[in-house]
């Protein structure tokens, strides 16, 4: 995404609110807990499921339902690495670079991935297909190196293996 466009796009996305069915699901999440503030993380997950990220408008809607300020919600969102505050690629590739994965070659994988996708860690490809990130230990060190792509773990990686996986993702 290039510089001039970015502001406009972010503004547009910020104004995106949640749909009826997600709002209903948030109500159900609230009802599951002894206190409604506990439903904040589940609500943000639901928002991200619908939008691919947690828009400012969604955060506002959630704040109202839970009974906290939008600033409080924003503070929570920014604390957790899995919540996105802006649109990300359709496939978020989270490569683990912590000790055990590093011992098993995650550095090489990272440079190969950066070369293949033509982006650096932290960036999204122009076509919006991939976001590449480095993350800390994902609890899969016995099958290192590994990465998570959206919800799925991919373990015992070689570049050939991940190359095939990425080529298979639209």
């Amino acid at each position, binding site marked *: 995404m290039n510089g001039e466009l970015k502001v406009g796009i972010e503004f547009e996305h910020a104004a995106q609110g949640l749909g009826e069915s997600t709002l209903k699901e948030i109500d159900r999440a609230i009802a599951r807990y002894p206190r409604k503030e506990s439903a904040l993380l589940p609500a943000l997950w639901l928002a991200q499921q619908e939008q691919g990220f947690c828009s400012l408008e969604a955060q506002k809607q959630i704040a109202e339902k839970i009974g906290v300020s939008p600033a409080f919600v924003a503070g929570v969102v920014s604390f957790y690495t899995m919540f996105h505050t802006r649109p990300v690629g359709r496939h978020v590739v989270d490569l683990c670079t912590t*000790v055990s994965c590093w011992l098993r070659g995650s550095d090489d994988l990272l440079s190969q991935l950066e070369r293949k996708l033509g982006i650096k860690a932290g960036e999204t490809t122009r076509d919006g297909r991939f976001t590449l990130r480095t993350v800390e230990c994902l609890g899969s060190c016995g099958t290192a190196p590994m990465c998570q792509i959206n919800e799925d773990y991919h373990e015992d990686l070689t570049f050939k293996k991940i190359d095939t996986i990425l080529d298979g993702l639209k």
Partner: protein
Amino acid sequence: MGALTEKVLTRNLHHADQPDIDAAVGRGAYRQLARALTMERDAIVEEVKKSGLRGRGGAGFPCGLKWTFMPKDSPKPRYLVVNCDESEPGTFKDRLLIERDPHMCLEGFLISAYAMRASLIFIYIRGEFVLGHNTLARAIEQARAKGYIGGNVLGSGWDIDVILHRGAGAYICGEETALMESLEGKRGYPRLKPPFPASYGVYGNPTTINNVETLCCVPFILERGSAWFAGIGREKNTGPKLYCLSGHVKRPGVYEAEVGIPFMRLFGELGGGLLDPKRKLKAVIPGGSSAAVMTASECDDLPMDFDTLMARGSMLGSAGVMVMDDSVCMVRACERVLKFYAHESCGQCTPCRVGADWIHRTVARIEAGGGKQGDLETLVSVCDGMIGKTICVFADAAALPAKSFVAKFRDEFNDHISLKTCPMRAGKA
């Protein structure tokens, strides 16, 4: 020393249908729950105490003793929190248990909740474990349908509910009070202790928090008796234990053995030795990256138990055992360990927020060839300034391993400083 001669926690993990409740019940699941519901609650707590079971989450605190801290006569709701945040680098055992045998886990959680008179169980699972989350969610629904969860469990008059709560990416939420803040819908900031969770936990109510693996031991303690459990391992270091082997080892993975299995047996016999047999063993991190690193010679005669590792200046921690061969630059390894802490500090305490980042940047600079005389002394003194001075022990968990790397591999650090490059990289080039 009682060796473990059979599989216990892992005995059903190879059955593909084990996550299904009918298959699990066919193999004995929930039988101990039914028995427990006919027992005196305090008798269960007493059995767990006598078994010597110590927490598998990191600190090794005696489990039964912790349960007795729950106030007996408080009118407030009481909670059991299950810590399934599993984020300590090098650790991947709880994930295996919940993905492969969720009903064994639930049975352990339920018996424990009954023993401590809890009315609600929160299972806090790290956000990345999507498969584990979905497996547990399905298991909970199945157990509810069969009457193991809900009102009047198996006709006993005991009501229990289970809430599965998904985190969203933050190592610090594994710390017990940060986890509770996160459960309450806040940033995961650790709380000052005291008050401890038993008196002031989730929503300020009496709460006990345990690791998944800890609670999985409970049904077996009931089934076979505390004496059987206490006979595995050695005094105060008892029971079966899951060890996570990773790094430069031929067969990485989770291995079940007695607490105190000698490192060389774990690594050599079970793990198959080094990945590249032409290499030599150089160093081992025995208990997750918060544990002090051990040199190869320190590993020669090393029972992997709580008290031995503590006495030798490291810890069993989460039993995440990371193996490094002699191709590893220890300054670089130290940098990798510290990168994690620099990234994960919650930022509440200045010594931790500033210190974790500073020690990482300093080691990275030394690794890159920019080290100066005096750096190591400053590094150690900054580490000392982080230890024992913060709200939670995260700062210690960053500073102690850093100090251990510098102390045990000082020559390598010095070589980086005097040569202004990594000698191993220079040697290769």
